[in-house]
């Protein structure tokens, strides 16, 4: 549908230059490329103003440690991290998302790594951030992502004798064999 309010590409570019949030993202991206090289990042995008980049699990620890030490933008607050599961992506099934925040400059960064489900190992961040301890245990509990070097990697919210990782996509929410709750419209 044609929208008369959409500005020309040139005008949009100028607006992006003036927008302080977009400028900060650009500054952050420059910093990332300078510190770790342009090859370290793929799929760089800014969904809803949140700078997002994909990297590899070999590099993620060095990147987060480097950003924590960096004095220019001071990305030294770990907002959250969580696991993800995309069963249809061959050899990239499991993922881990890290969100960092600079409380001084108010700029956020989301880093993602993807790895095969047969080898779900990531480096731990517990020696950088104490907050990472339970977040990594949560990712292990729900997705079976093993944080190598974690001091106490056991289940956190589910019962200890559970033998699967329930947030993986192959586990349907309800038991598909139940017959007492038939609802054709909602696929039960």
């Amino acid at each position, binding site marked *: 549908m044609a929208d008369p309010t959409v500005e020309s590409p040139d005008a949009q570019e100028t607006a992006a230059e003036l927008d302080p949030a977009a400028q900060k993202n650009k500054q952050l991206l420059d910093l990332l490329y300078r510190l770790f090289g342009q090859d370290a990042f793929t799929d760089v995008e800014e969904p*809803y103003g949140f700078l*997002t980049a994909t990297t590899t699990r070999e590099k993620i620890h060095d990147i987060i440690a480097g950003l924590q030490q960096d004095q220019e933008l001071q990305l030294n607050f770990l*907002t*959250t991290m969580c696991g993800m599961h995309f069963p249809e992506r061959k050899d990239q099934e499991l993922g881990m998302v890290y969100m960092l925040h600079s409380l001084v400059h108010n700029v956020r960064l989301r880093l993602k790594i993807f790895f095969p489900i047969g080898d779900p190992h990531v480096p731990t961040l517990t020696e950088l951030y104490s*907050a990472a301890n339970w*977040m990594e245990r949560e990712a292990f509990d729900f997705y079976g992502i093993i944080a190598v070097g974690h001091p106490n990697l056991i*289940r*956190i919210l589910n019962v200890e004798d559970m033998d699967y990782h329930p947030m993986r996509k192959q586990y349907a*929410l309800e038991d598909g064999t139940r017959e007492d709750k038939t609802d054709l419209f909602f696929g039960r």
Partner: protein
Amino acid sequence: MAVNDTLEGTRKIIEEAEAQRPNLHPLAPTVNDFNQELTTLNLGPTHPATHGIFQNILQMDGERIISGVPTIGYIHRAFEKIAERRPFYQITPLTDRMNYCSSPINNMGWHMTVEKLLGVTVPKRAQYMRVILMELARITDHLICNGILGVDTGAFTGFLYLMDEREKVYEIYEEVSGARLTTNMGRVGGMERDFTPVAIQKLRAWLKSFPAVMREFEKMFNRNRIFMDRVVDVGGISAERALNYGFTGPNLRAAGVDYDVRVMNPYSSYQDFDFEIPVGTKGDTYDRFMVRNEEIWQSLRIIEQALENLPEGPYHADAPHFYLPPKQAVYQNMEALIYHFKIIMGEIDAPVGEVYHSVEGGNGELGFYLVSDGGRTPYRLHFRRPCFIYYQAYTEMVVGQTLSDAIVTLSSMNVIAGELDA
């Protein structure tokens, strides 16, 4: 750490006293023999002072805590998994049940996340209404936390009077949404209905009566010798450690860091209001108490400004694909019937994308990370629950302190089991 120094100091005094009486009796055990007899204490899961179901297995040397192992997950309800099967509007009741002391903040935070994904702009009036409700929720949250801190130190009176005030706020919620505790308030795109005249009247009456009660509560506690002896320098954490542990909200501000999502990334027109962020210095229980008290006054200021300047206009966005039409219109209007059916049956797809939105919850930065693959439900929804992240610091904060200090520390951190376990 200072607390461990105290522990070592106590040990030293005992050992010196022991050295004064050598060879007391061949059968009398020495103090060191006693010191090695550590007690294991199960604090929780259902202890009246934990205000929720979570367990701490503490190793005690007499009254002092040597180490602790927290166990959580007793009320885990798999909200993130359930959310992957529910349309967006059905996820709001799940958010109610996270921090159930301030449900409206969770509700509004979720609505704003979905609105951000859909690109819906909410009219000014709805934004101001949301601000009023969110600040009321913040006040009730802090009232409960500070009132119960009083109970845990032996002063029941303050709690009793504050519960009365909370009841009045719940009556306002009731007038606005029909519910009290798990409010399910608002809709994606705005509010489900405008404030009724009764709601405005109740709100104004409460704004008039509450400051006197709050002042009385502060007079009872702020400079109370008994209370201060129990909470000053108890369960402290440095700003550096707090940031490393991912603290947010009043607990971080008590340690002296002025991070508040309302100011740093304003949402729902918070930039229109004039308010201050109180900060503490030492991050101890007393600082947390004082920061929460001051935030209650600042929230009152915000509510008064929002109510004073409440703009006229619609109370929801013009987003028929996502905002449920009024029930009356469904019976009389063809389009309303169609949209009602489509929304309820989940036939409307959301755009593909990923969005993170955070609001300042009662306990800190409450974040929603929503990944949409274009279907009617989220592909992945992750809640950043402030309690879950900062509760892991609890062991470090209480080691070396006495059991009674551990109780007030837990109380002042305001750990809500629903949010902790999700």
